[in-house]
């Protein structure tokens, strides 16, 4: 049963100013509890806005450091979930359920990637 990392990328411009609604947090909490109890969820968390983040870049043998906010906000990693699933289809199914708890005004992309083991 492979492990998967779901990288939750959000369009930060669609996030309400006051943050996720209490109803969303409630539904999300219930779903995460369900996925955890199913023995699938290994670890998950949401991230603080990218404006508070820092990028550390390595190129041409030099380090450069850039503080947020960053210019592009279309697909910014806003959270992650480590899951242990039978196959990609199952990881995708749980991911769909995770997306469906969001209100319609959200734009979210989950990139589901298998973790290279060994």
């Amino acid at each position, binding site marked *: 049963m492979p492990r998967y990392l779901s990288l939750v990328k959000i369009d930060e411009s669609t996030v309400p100013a006051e943050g996720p609604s209490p109803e969303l947090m409630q539904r999300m909490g219930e779903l995460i509890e369900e996925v955890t*109890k199913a023995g699938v969820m290994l*670890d998950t968390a949401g991230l603080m806005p990218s404006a508070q983040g820092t990028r550390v870049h390595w190129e041409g043998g030099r380090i450069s450091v850039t503080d947020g906010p960053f210019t592009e906000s279309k697909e910014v990693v806003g959270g992650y979930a480590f899951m*242990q699933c*039978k196959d990609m*289809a199952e990881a995708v199914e749980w991911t769909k359920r995770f997306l469906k708890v969001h209100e319609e005004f959200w734009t979210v992309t989950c990139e589901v990637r298998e973790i290279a083991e060994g």
Partner: protein
Amino acid sequence: MEQQHARPTEPPGALEEDLETVFRLESPRVVAAVARIVRDIGIAEELTQDALVAALEQWPRDGLPGNPGAWLMTTARRRAVDLVRRRERYAHKLQEIGRNLEAVPPPEEPSAPDDIDDDLLRLVFTTCHPVLSAEARTALTLRLLGGLTTAEIARAFLVPESTVAQRIVRAKRLLAQRNVAFEVPYGPEREARLGSVLGVIYLIFNEGYAATAGDDWLRPGLCEDALRLARLLAGLMPKEPEAHALVALLEFQASRAAARTGPHGEPVLLKDQDRRRWNRMLIARGVAALARADTTGAPGPYALQAAIAACHARAYTYEETDWPAIVTLYSLLAARSPSPVVELNRAVAVSMAEGPAPALEIVDALAAEPALRAYHLLPSVRADLLARLGRTAEARAEFERAASLARNERERELLLRRAAENG
């Protein structure tokens, strides 16, 4: 997002794939809920399959329902209630013509979502019921709770699919014949029955972790199925320290999986493992689960084994292992649930903490143990101790004896190599 890869509409075939996944995820809960109505897990499984067939007919025509799991649940439950009513009418008719049948309880009201956990727990206790053989328990638990197909179970245990199918059919029949109640035991019976449930999960894990037969040393699929079951059980029984302890033990054991086999699939022993390859996330999960299992009372057997595994996980190198602590834990385990295998493990820990000579005394005391007569690890441990004491000729003979007893091909090769080293 690249448009050419977007899937706004599902391509043909996607529905079947979705359905298969949804069904595998939902079927344990549906079977559990239906079993409470019909009081028979065999019939419950059939009704769940019927609901799947209905979904296969309707979903492609009407589209995927918003909540496929709920749809399957409702459909299966409705059929279950119909079946019970039909049975009642039948019993009533027979009574009218002067025949007595056992009264069937009326169907219960549909359950609230919270009741699903209770249903699942009843299902676990039923599939792990002591009236069933160990093989039947593992097969039934993997089938109904793990969502594995009979083919997958057969592959995992290296037996023909027909054997597994038969085991499952017989198990269901036996549960029905013995009128095994679909319930969670309470009172004094509970602890013994919980032991049986934990034992089944542990057995499944071990079969994957050190395969008793076959060519592969490790069958990780089974370990992960067991781990998922253990996590599920701990979620269903959050107040049971031993349920959390079993999770902790398996998380620790699984954290070493990548380091336990070499590049050619050969076993790598604990002391030779590259500990950088241990999975830190699983170790952290093990630590957290062990903390949840921490009780004010005396630790149970799984808590003690998990604590031993934690000692290994905490050591960044083999040399840093806290062997005296491990010896103490094995002594507690031997007092709590004595067994020759525990004693053998204690000997290994003693050899590391105090040297091979006192350990050899413990091992030699086990020589007459009938339970270990065919257990290859007894001569294997003894050979290792003899080698460390410089008694190479005896060590070689013992390694060869261990190799002749080992049923796993990979282990046999390792033992023969060690015999040759002591030539």
